[in-house]
């Protein structure tokens, strides 16, 4: 194996593992203040929105408000999500909408 690539694999793996592991292992032994717990309660919704929004609005890294299949496909997927609360139906309808919009645009 290429020595450079070996260092790259081990180095990137280590610096990725530490932030994944340390809070869970270290904070599990501490008493967490109430305000921190409330803050954590907002994290899932906030991080999902922060991950999703650029994927829909900046598909190529630039703001695309028209002719953007990601943004258009999010409309039927969002409606199905709110109506059915089903992950499978949301993903299938989103992917189907994506195929259609990519074909038309």
């Amino acid at each position, binding site marked *: 194996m290429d020595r450079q690539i070996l260092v790259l694999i081990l180095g990137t793996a280590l610096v*990725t593992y530490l932030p994944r*592991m340390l809070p869970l*292992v270290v904070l599990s032994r501490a008493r967490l203040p109430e305000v921190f717990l409330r*803050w954590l309660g907002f994290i*899932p919704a906030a*991080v999902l929105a922060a991950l999703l929004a650029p994927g829909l609005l900046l598909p190529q890294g630039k703001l695309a408000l028209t002719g953007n299949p990601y943004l258009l496909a999010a409309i039927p997927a969002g409606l199905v999500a709110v109506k059915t609360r089903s992950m499978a139906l949301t*993903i299938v309808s*989103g992917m189907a*909408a*994506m195929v259609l919009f990519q074909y038309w645009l």
Partner: protein
Amino acid sequence: MQPQVEVSTVEENFSFYFTQGFRAALPIVLGYLPLGFAYGVLAREAGFSLWETVLLSVFLYAGSGQFIAVSLFSNGVALAAIIFTVFLVNLRHLLFSASFVPHLRRFKPAVLALLAAEITDETFAVAINHYAGHEPRLPYHFGLHLTAHSSWVLASLLGGLAGNLIGDPARFGFNFALPAMFIILLVMQLKDKKTLLVAGLAAVFSVAIALVWPGNWNIILATVLAATLGVILELWTGKS
């Protein structure tokens, strides 16, 4: 023969919850297969052997981090700079890991250290949603993690083997599998107006920061900022 009965009950529970985790991972697999495949193709083009391509998926196991690592490597960027960039890109896992603490703190640190190795955006979102209405179970969580990770490794292997033979998976809409999953998970998180406001702020911040400052900082900054504003607002209005 009491002990034997107990053992078999434990085993049944294990396979029940492991299967539950496996099922919960299937939507993630749908998104990981094309993405991991694309990574495999890219890694081979960047000069990685098949073996190295797969090992990065086993040990690093972070989609955006892997894409960035192999593309920087093929551009001849210094190793230390690549490692530091991947560190920054993956720093958001701190938040996921901390968010699991209230749910998983009763388990042994050594087990948690193992479980934490396979936290991703997608497995975090699925598990934290599940724990809103279910008791945390290690077999569920490991079933979810191992299924998602295996599909990622398998997809990288196939991508590394096939090269650019199959063409663009976007033709089949696979490029929308993960955004659609984020949509449904976000919808399930929006239980009150406060959370809706925090999510809206995070979306706006994330896009704005990504536009002025490329390099994946937007996710962690927007999340921290929006959640902090949410807490401040809560304290301000005096509601618990």
